[in-house]
């Protein structure tokens, strides 16, 4: 048994005391699970921080009546099921075995201190406890507040080396009343990348004030997650809500992934490499309506994108890429490194990138005009565009313009455009 003194929360230095009761190893995902006992007061000190700072945590969804009953029960010192938390930290590799309480405790303490802890299961219970604490503070009932804060609860903390492993475990455990989608679990799991970035690349959240620069160094966090989700789901459509079947499909992908690789990172770095290549080959192309003399390429509505990056940094392109790469991995055993190797050889007819990109925009112009669901059709287009571009057996292999024509033809037939 090990007593933890957890670090500072916000500006106030408070020692949080939790008791590690047991540590077990999950061999499947190469992670440890520590069971701790902690008082409600201590739990809420860092839980409030987690809830407040992570916009991707689940929303409140609790029946008013249930909330009222749970509130009353908590005041009577009821026992609630363990809260499940998770930590992803490089230092987890240093845990020696199931008896290494000291290292585990330090990692947990550090994660809470740096706000790198995630609430996997028990968020709605946490909301009720937070509300109750606020309410007791508001009515200034110090006796009830002290009693409530001193109640003990259990928490299980997953200490995972690898996020894909944690994601796998989160999905397999996620059998509650309001199941979470893979997409949402990923938002929670990869949240810290939006703070620290990957190899100098910034991932910017919608709520961040800063504008995403038109470079290959900055991306919208949610869009990259959409793309990665498409990779896992093998589907370019944006699936933003729970379907158990989708999660099961994701599990099939996850269980085949190498546990010790960060495929999210590989995904992003590969896409960045593709963008850098296209950007350089197209000589930082920009759309200019006045220079477009070719009547067949005149657009009827505003262009899908006005620069190479504007086009390829959109969610439609990145989800299409995710779905295509997943397909190529499954059917042709083509991995991220192979995709990267191919990028340098991408070309287009007569090296005429202006015509190639204008033709692509014209195809998007027609999609907008004819589509019954524009966003979905654009994603479908990009899926086939990348399949055509990176499939060595395709006639359009490494040919930008031919891939674009191939994608449009596939779309036209599938969606019955007239």
């Amino acid at each position: 048994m090990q007593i933890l003194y957890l670090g500072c929360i916000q500006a106030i230095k408070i020692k949080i005391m939790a008791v590690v009761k047991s540590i077990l190893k999950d061999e499947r995902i190469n992670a440890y699970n520590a069971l701790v006992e902690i008082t409600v007061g201590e739990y809420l000190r860092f839980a409030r921080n987690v809830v407040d700072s992570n916009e991707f945590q689940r929303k409140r969804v609790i029946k008013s009546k249930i909330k009222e009953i749970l509130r009353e029960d908590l005041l009577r010192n009821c026992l609630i099921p363990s809260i499940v938390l998770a930590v992803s930290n490089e230092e987890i590799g240093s845990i020696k075995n199931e008896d290494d309480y000291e290292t585990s405790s330090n990692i947990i303490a550090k994660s809470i201190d740096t706000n790198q802890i995630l609430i996997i299961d028990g968020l709605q219970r946490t909301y009720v406890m937070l509300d109750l604490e606020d309410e007791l503070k508001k009515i200034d009932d110090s006796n009830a507040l002290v009693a409530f804060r001193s109640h003990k609860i259990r928490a299980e903390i997953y200490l995972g080396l690898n996020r894909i492993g944690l994601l796998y475990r989160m999905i397999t455990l996620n059998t509650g009343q309001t199941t979470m989608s893979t997409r949402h679990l990923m938002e929670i799991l990869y949240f810290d990348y939006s703070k620290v970035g990957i190899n100098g690349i910034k991932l910017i959240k919608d709520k961040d004030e800063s504008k995403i620069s038109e470079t290959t160094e900055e991306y919208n966090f949610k869009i990259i997650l959409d793309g990665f989700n498409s990779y896992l789901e093998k589907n370019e459509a944006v699936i933003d809500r729970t379907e158990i079947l989708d999660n099961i499909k994701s599990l099939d992908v996850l269980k085949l992934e190498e546990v010790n690789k960060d495929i999210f990172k590989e995904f992003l770095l590969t896409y960045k490499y593709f963008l850098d290549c296209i950007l350089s080959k197209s000589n930082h192309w920009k759309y200019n309506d006045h220079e477009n003399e070719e009547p067949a390429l005149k657009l009827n509505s505003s262009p899908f994108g006005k620069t190479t990056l504007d086009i390829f940094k959109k969610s439609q392109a990145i989800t299409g890429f995710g779905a295509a790469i997943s397909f190529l991995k499954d059917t042709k055993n083509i991995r991220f490194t192979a995709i990267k190797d191919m990028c340098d050889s991408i070309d287009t007819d007569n090296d005429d990138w202006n015509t190639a990109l204008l033709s692509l925009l014209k195809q998007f112009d027609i999609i907008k005009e004819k589509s019954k669901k524009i966003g979905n059709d654009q994603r479908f287009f990009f899926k086939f565009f990348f399949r055509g571009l990176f499939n060595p057996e395709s006639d359009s292999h490494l040919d930008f313009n031919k891939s674009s024509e191939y994608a449009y033809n596939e779309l036209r037939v599938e969606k019955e455009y007239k």
Partner: protein
Amino acid sequence: MLIIKDKAPSTITHDFLLTNVVTSNLNTFELTSPTIELTIPFSLEAPVAVVPPNYSVTVHLFKNTFHSQQDIIDLRVEGLAQRNGKIGYFFRLDALFENNVLQIDQYIYPYAYLGLEYVFSQMSAMQTKDAEVSSEDYNISHFFDEDTVILVLCNEYCANIPNFNIENYLAQLFLYGFISFNKTNAIESVNTSSFIEDNYLGLKAVPSPTGVYVLRISKANDFISGETYITHLFRNLIQKQTDPVTRFIMLYQVVEIFIGKLFHYEIQNKVCNNLFALDSYKLKDIMGEMQKQKNLIKALFNRYSRPTSTLENTVKAKLIEFFVHVLDPDYIDPAENAKLTLTHLFYDYRNKLVHQYRLIHNTAISQADTKTKIDEINQLTESLMAEVISNFNT
């Protein structure tokens, strides 16, 4: 209002009503429930514009297989002087919540805004799908079929049309592919004939960079306004999958209604209003003519409600094709067939189905082909009946 169910096996439901509209760069409608702590936000993806006070709208649900997601249809009524007859707009519901799909300017914005306010505020839910409780983000397609098109009608503009009732316009809207539906009356059968497709695409003959196209309809004719079967047909029946022969009989009821009404109308005009110019022989001739259904159908198709020539010719060609296919001995001479009128062919087809149903079960002919041909005739008859209703003019 939107309704969200608890996960099965619970049967508890939660009503969500519009409780707040947050305005920033977009207007966001927030729905909350008294029975569950959850807020559902929906942002109207268009630059915020002024919504004039003292205007209200009514929203109706439609589908249209030819309607593209970016299309906005500006609905106007012929002969209505104010604002060139504008009474409302059709929008794809999901497009209102998607970035960069619709081009909603300051004039269209109030319709979109009030339309959504109407959908979210109604005390009986308009949603067409069941949704379950989830802590994750909801979007409109969790509550409505993805291809739902809303017609947002301005009540104040519609009030300029005496006794305005959308029910009297369903046949006209059907001719452009718009079919009314709701959760309990789902669309099972869609008319995909090129006639209706051409009508809809005709609205888009001149490309519009803003995606806004004008659909002009006529004022409903008092002669058939309030005819409950016609309303029922376009509100509830035409959407349903039915046996092909039953479907034709169902559609033919429109002709029955018209010839019943035309009988009285013709008697009024030819006899009552002209009484002193008649003698007993002339009166007998008129009455004799009026007794023949075929004559009344002829009057309907030729005088009172002439179908467009494209439709007339297509219906005639398909009917002749059918008679030839079933080896009807009355249709063995192509030269004679070509001379036959729509009235003759249509009335004969009806009679053959009713009185000589056995004709289509001749073992020497392909039953599958027969069914296909009847289905094609039915699709054209749907359009023909909609035209008869829409074009009727006394």
